[in-house]
């Protein structure tokens, strides 16, 4: 069933390539397949039972490249299931949003369906080679999306995105090879590597190999100072490209931390933890501060991603500080990990919504300048309502998913490393960032380009409202999500504590 979920979009993409498929068909096929995927993942969620530590639900393993100990191994647990579900939801939202795409809609549907397979495959992968293949294929897919459907300096931004993240992936590969070489018998199987971390107790070797993995993931996440590819990539990407890039693909980096780096390098992770916490705090403050100074809506949202990814790093880094090993500390570490995973889901929903709304702005006037608009609240009240809700979610207001994530990260993080309290200022800065955006776009007299701004159309508000509704659901009744995440967070905390 999991393989069906992963490869159905790719099969659909291949079918769409057949000659004679009309644009209209392609658009609705994109919507239909993503909707079906969402239904499938809901069914899998309902049937999901938390597997024991070190095991996977819906697991499937077939020989692939036996010579190097790589197999086709997929499965889900509390870390991957929420991200797989979020991926389906975001692609479905993008599909609906893309219903009005006029530029080569068939090719775009093919590209995004193929991209969906790479994203789902990455989160489902339980083998490092499989993980890496999906990791790099997704980079290619996003490159094509920005290059083919972007605007502005799209070629330059796409190339920069490609080279930067591709080089990052080489560092990641280096780390994977290091793991492989050190394992005995040699294997790329993630379950086996987590069960018996090959570089445990190897001192500087483990620290160095983890360093390569961290570098690769930090570029992808991205964290300060490896984030400079993100703003141009987002600014010039099409709306749905940005939504997928920020909503899903940034999570490949953060997911790698919790899926690969933490369980497979427990003692090295603990050595790196202080560095990660500092990088996280710097990312939180830097991302929010730079966002505050932006005059371009999309660049601003891109920098808020740096801020939000920083929270994740803080939570995961704090989980590497064992402290006195007391029950309260253990609970704090679990909480921090659970918050980090919640943040991955939450950021996907909220940033997806924000980027789609930015796409609405672009569709009207091909201009992201915050100061070029004003008073949209009266011209486009529905747009304003959605934007305010997404902004409130992004600034971590309780009642939306961001709060559930951030309170867990801060409660767990501060309890293990009091210095994390410094990052609370990030919440404040984000409040200022979002209020500023709301004020320059929505309030004041109708001004500049706002005068003929038409309100959101059905295919625009439906996907955004869907994403926000899920965020509110998580914000008010998070149990359904936390019940899935918490056992996995607990087992990661235990693995790191080895």
């Amino acid at each position, binding site marked *: 069933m999991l393989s069906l979920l992963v490869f159905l979009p790719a099969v659909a993409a291949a079918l769409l390539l057949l000659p004679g498929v009309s644009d209209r068909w392609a658009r609705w096929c994109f919507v239909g397949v993503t909707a079906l995927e969402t239904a499938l993942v809901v069914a899998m969620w309902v049937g999901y039972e938390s597997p024991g530590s070190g095991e996977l639900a819906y697991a499937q393993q077939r020989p692939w490249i036996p010579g190097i100990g790589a197999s086709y191994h997929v499965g889900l647990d509390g870390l991957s299931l929420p991200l797989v579900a979020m991926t389906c939801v975001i692609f479905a939202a993008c599909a609906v949003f893309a219903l009005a795409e006029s530029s080569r809609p068939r090719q775009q549907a093919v590209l995004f369906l193929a991209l969906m397979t790479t994203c789902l495959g990455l989160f489902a992968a339980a083998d490092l080679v499989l993980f890496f293949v999906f990791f790099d294929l997704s980079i290619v897919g996003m490159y094509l999306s920005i290059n083919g459907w972007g605007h502005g300096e799209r070629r330059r931004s796409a190339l920069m995105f490609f*080279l*930067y993240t591709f*080089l990052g992936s*080489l560092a990641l590969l*280096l780390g994977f*090879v*290091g793991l492989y*070489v*050190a394992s*005995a018998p040699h294997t790329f199987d993630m379950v086996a590597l987590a069960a018996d971390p*090959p*570089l445990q107790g190897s001192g500087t*070797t483990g620290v*160095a*190999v983890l360093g390569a993995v961290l570098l690769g993931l930090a570029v992808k996440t991205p964290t300060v*100072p490896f*984030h*400079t590819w993100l703003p141009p990539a987002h600014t010039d990407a099409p709306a749905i490209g940005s939504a997928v890039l920020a909503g899903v693909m940034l999570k490949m980096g953060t997911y790698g931390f919790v899926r690969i780096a933490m369980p497979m390098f427990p003692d090295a992770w603990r050595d790196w933890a202080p560095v990660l916490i500092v990088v996280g705090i710097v990312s939180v403050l*830097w991302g929010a*501060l*730079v966002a*505050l*100074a*932006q005059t371009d809506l999309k660049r601003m949202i891109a920098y808020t991603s740096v801020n939000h990814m920083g929270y994740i790093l803080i939570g995961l880094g704090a989980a590497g500080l064992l402290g006195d090993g007391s029950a*309260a500390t253990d*609970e*704090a570490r679990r*909480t921090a990990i659970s918050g980090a995973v919640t943040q991955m889901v939450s950021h996907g929903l909220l940033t997806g919504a924000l980027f789609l709304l930015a796409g609405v702005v672009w569709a009207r006037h091909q201009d992201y300048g915050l100061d070029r608009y004003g*008073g949209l*609240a*009266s011209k486009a*009240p529905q747009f304003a309502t959605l934007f*305010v809700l997404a902004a*409130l979610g992004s600034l971590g207001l*309780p*009642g939306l998913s961001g*709060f559930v994530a951030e*309170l*867990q990260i*801060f*409660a*767990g993080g*501060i*309890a293990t490393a009091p210095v994390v*309290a410094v990052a*609370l200022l990030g*919440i*404040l*800065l984000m*409040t*200022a960032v979002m*209020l500023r955006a709301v*004020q320059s776009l*929505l*309030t*004041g007299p109708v001004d500049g380009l706002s005068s003929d701004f038409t309100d959101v159309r059905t295919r625009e508000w439906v996907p955004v409202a869907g994403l926000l509704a899920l965020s509110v659901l998580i914000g008010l*009744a*998070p*149990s359904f999500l*936390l019940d899935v995440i918490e056992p996995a967070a607990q087992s990661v905390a235990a693995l790191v504590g080895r």
Partner: protein
Amino acid sequence: MSAAVSSGTVLLPAIVIGPALVGALLVLVRTRLVATTAGWVGVVTVGLAAVASVIPAAGGATASTDFMLGAELGVTTFGPAAVILPVILAVAALVLLAATATPETRAARFTGLMLLFTAAAALTVLATSLPTLLLGWEVMGAASYALIGYRYVDPHRVGSGATAFLTTRTADLGLYLATAAALAGGTDLSLSSLASIEGGWRDVAAAGILVAALGKAAQLPFSFWLARAMDGPSPVSALLHSAAMVALGGYLLLQVSPLLAATGWADDAAAWTGAATALVLGAVALAQRDLKQLLAASTAAQLGFVVLAAGVGATSAGTAHLAAHAAVKALLFLAAGAWLEALGSKRLSTLTGAARRWPAVGLLTAVALLSLAGMPPLALWATKDAVLAGALEHSLALYVVGLLGSAMAAGYAVKALVILVSHQPDVAPHLDEEEPGTREISPRVTLALLPLGLGAVTLGLLAWPSVLESLPGDAPLAPAAWELVASTAVVVVVGALVASLVPGPSGADGRQRGVGARLVSWLHSWLGLEALITAVVVRPVLRAADAAARLDDRVLARGVGLAAAVALRLAAATARLDDGFLARGVDRISTGTLQAAHTTARGDAGLSATVSGVALSARRAGRLVRRSSASGQLHLYYLQLVAGVLLTAVVLTVILLVGSPR
């Protein structure tokens, strides 16, 4: 009893969820039906909630569901909520009733936001755990942003909303800190368990909650946001700054009073901050020339008494004061709003004699102002003296500062009263200064003021010793006869003094000259706190943001570009090396082969054709290599590949040599 408890358990969540759902619908749904009925839908919804709240409040009820961090999303009426919940809902219903008198404030968006705000305030009051508290607390803050900046076309008003939201959210970070402390302290994050945390985390929790509450309650040094908050429509001020929002800052401290006491320092910090705010903001109120600004400063000052009560452990007295103040202040803000709408200004000079022109509203306002002044036997007289009795139990100095604070209260209340009941001038100054006045006050407003006036008179009964004992929390000793005499004397003397000093309508704008002028203008500007924060915090942060953005663009991003340029240059150099050395080498080899072929050809003509063919193709291959090396890109990738392979090889060697693979 058990029947009451069970029905209360059902009703209690409904009291929060009902207004929240209706409010969300009113904000989101835009149909004609909603637009025309919104105002009354709001009144009925909150009215029903207010009536329903009596059952769980009287019987005591608790309800909860799973939330996060292992804590529950829980509500309970055990504790001061039993008094405060019905008060908030009743005030909200009356404010919404008065709001229906004006088209702007019976609109769907306004009513919806008020309902969301009310639901959040109710949740804040009822919360049993820190995450639940944060949910109500911060949603309340966000709703206040939307309400204060309700007239979003005016950037200044929106800015006022943002000031309120940002200031209170700064303080709210304390609650995040307190949550972390509660987690680290091994508690279940319930509010009642905080006092039992051991060691340093208890201090962190207390400090965090104290800061959050002082921010919301507009105590020093956070008071300035309240001045800007007056830019909202009058019903907003009437709800936010009487029963909810500001009041809930004081309420939270009443609730965690045991935690404050357990630390040994937080209780004193709260008590002194409260007393200082009562005194200083009382002086600020006295210096105002605008009725709403006077009332706003007075709200901060009156909340000072509640915070003082929480600090000295006189929590039931604090609860009584909170309830009585809610009725008094809601009435006064609604009256101020009604006059603003009728006369187009809220300047005291414009309002001279307004009480005579509208006698019903005037009479109710006069009663409320006398209550605010602390005149016996009205409500705030009794409750404030109960608080002061608690302060005296604690320390004489606190009592004296508190008494001075009540002198200020007498001063500003009497000042407003004297101006309102003076004879009207022939031509009122500044008429229609802010908006065109209607010269009318709707009977609905008067209707809404009536119950509030009743509360302003009678809620002092809450401070009656036997009633006070029965309220949740700790009751202080009843004030001694001399204390009552002293406080009454203060009110009468100060009141008489102010009444004799208040200048006529022209001077009510207060253009003082001379020695006290600078003091008065400092007080009038709310101690210049906002300007100070703007200069010390806001501007530097914005400058830092600009600097960070420049650094990001010019250094970090350019660094990557630089690295790319270096790589390209390296590639070009390699290409030259390639052209100059490798390709030439290939050329030479092919030339050499050719020569060899020629030599051989001389010797063996039969093989010559084959050999020269090989030589030719070798030369062609050499040209091909040279041609393709002309493009830099290929070399870049070539270089990357080589570097990657080398790096892999090095790392693998290191691992194999240094590491200890099993």
